[in-house]
């Protein structure tokens, strides 16, 4: 890194840095433009020139989105589904990752290979049979139905196993010898040791579920049961050609995940890098 620093001073280094920053600003511009447009009154939104700041900033689009659409219900649905999927997935994956890493039982290697193999399977190919399954269980248009096919993220088990692997097996055996219960060892020793990973994985699992489109879109037909990710695309007619209203709904839908990222930037990037199989 020191060499790169020295290079920062030369002319081309400066040019490259300037280009990078310019590209970053340009890259984020559509986001800025979307947010700014959502704060403009209708007549300003459609002005035929570029206005980087609203002349009369207004929240009327947001008030409209909040009062005339079912965005409140969609929010609740999204929160329930995302939190539910996160808790169930992270918890069951942790248990499984711990078992594969620290315990010896028949079929352990087979299970591990099964998990690794499922990494390759495209879940979007399973939509037909997920639909049949959820329909047969009578769970279409329910929270449970939206959650069920999303409860599997093999990668979370893989990451947990990698982390538990760093603890020698003797450690667990010694604790068990000391009369600690098997579950006590997991919950009182191994889990607290890995809070960082658990938080990081939970945040990204929440973001993934919040952002899921295809399955929530297929499994829900009743407007009030939609998640916000699906809901904001299904009510265009209700908005007519009021672009600013659509955009304000989009801002409301993106806000929780954007905030989660901005607050936990380090953890999110760490978990996403880990999920690609790279140790951060």
């Amino acid at each position, binding site marked *: 890194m020191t*060499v*790169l620093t*020295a*290079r920062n001073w030369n002319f081309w*280094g400066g040019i*490259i*840095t300037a280009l*990078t920053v310019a590209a970053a600003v340009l*890259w*984020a511009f559509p*986001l800025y*433009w*979307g947010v700014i*447009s959502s704060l403009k009154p209708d007549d300003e*939104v*459609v002005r*035929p020139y*570029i206005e980087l700041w609203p002349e009369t900033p207004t929240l009327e689009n947001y008030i409209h989105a909040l009062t005339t659409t079912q965005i409140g219900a969609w929010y609740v649905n999204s929160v329930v589904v995302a939190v539910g999927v996160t808790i*169930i997935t992270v918890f069951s994956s942790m248990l*499984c990752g711990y*078992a*594969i890493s620290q*315990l*010896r039982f028949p079929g352990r*290697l087979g*299970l591990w290979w*099964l998990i*690794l193999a499922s990494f*390759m*399977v495209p879940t*979007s190919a*399973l*939509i*037909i*049979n997920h639909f*049949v399954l959820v329909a047969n269980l009578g769970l279409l248009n329910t929270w449970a139905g939206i959650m069920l096919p999303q*409860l*599997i993220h093999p990668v979370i088990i*893989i990451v947990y*196993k990698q982390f538990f*692997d760093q603890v020698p097996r003797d450690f667990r055996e010694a604790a068990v010898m000391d009369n600690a219960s*098997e579950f006590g060892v997991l919950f009182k020793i191994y889990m607290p040791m890995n809070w960082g990973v658990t938080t990081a994985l939970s945040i990204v699992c929440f973001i993934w579920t*919040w952002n899921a*489109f*295809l399955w929530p879109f*297929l499994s829900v037909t009743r407007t009030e049961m939609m998640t916000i*990710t699906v809901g904001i*695309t299904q009510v265009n007619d209700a908005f007519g050609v009021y672009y600013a209203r*659509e955009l304000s709904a*989009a801002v409301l*839908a*993106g806000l929780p*995940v*954007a905030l989660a990222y*901005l607050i936990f*930037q380090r953890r*999110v*990037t760490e978990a996403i*890098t880990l999920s*690609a199989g790279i140790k951060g």
Partner: protein
Amino acid sequence: MLRNSRTEILVALVLIAPFLAIYLLVFVYPTAQMFRISFTDAPLIGEGKWVGVANYLRLLKDPMFRRAAWNTGYFVLMTVVPGTIIAMLIALGVSRLKGRFQSAVLALFFLPYILPVSVVYLIWDWTLNFQFGVAMHVLDLLGVARVPVFKSREWFLPTVALVTIWWTAGFSILLFLAGLRAIPAEIYEAASLDNATRWTTFRRITWPLLWPITSLVVTIQLILQLKIFDQVYLFSVGGRPNENMVFVYYIFHRAFEQNQGGRAAAVAVTLFVLVVVVSVLQFQLLRLTERRPR
């Protein structure tokens, strides 16, 4: 000792039970069912007669399937190759920056990746809006004729590919940054002692050492983009969905719009096999062997 290992097995079974139950229910069972109904003429819900490989033979002669295959391939080509190059260039630029400044610049590139596809759709639908979109104002300033990109046959997929690159590049950038960080600084120091030019340094050091990450990024992108649906569907609404057909859209179309579960499953199996073959062919296998448990 024997009792100990028996308790250990029992505990292990209890611990893996929740995962295994979910896994069998929403993964193994649907996969088996998908293969089974692809050989029947079943509707979406309900049983059908066994028809052997008829559904697959029909795919070969089905122009819409051919279009889906062609479009998916075209889309994959337009996202994976430029997406990887752009992400690598951005990562090289960002890796020069330091501390908070680096985090801030990275956040600008990364933020789109964190957003739901429908938000990305609404933002770009607005940015590229034929009448009022800010991009069209820019085209006007440049003296280029406006294009109704999402209604145009030639421009639809390239535009959706562009939006997709914008949306997903953050992920690849992150991986490239991790790869760049893993290259020891000493190597660069040695290179600069030898008065290597910036280009030589990149070609002889950065590029070869970054190669494992590059192939990882390409594989992940390839598999991701083969499964493209959301953006194509959203941008197609009110446009020409049949012209913009891709694999998953075709599964959706057959199963949910035409109520032909069996024929849809044949497409799903094809996609399934394709993705598995790609994963295996690429160095996915390599990664698996690295992950063998102790």
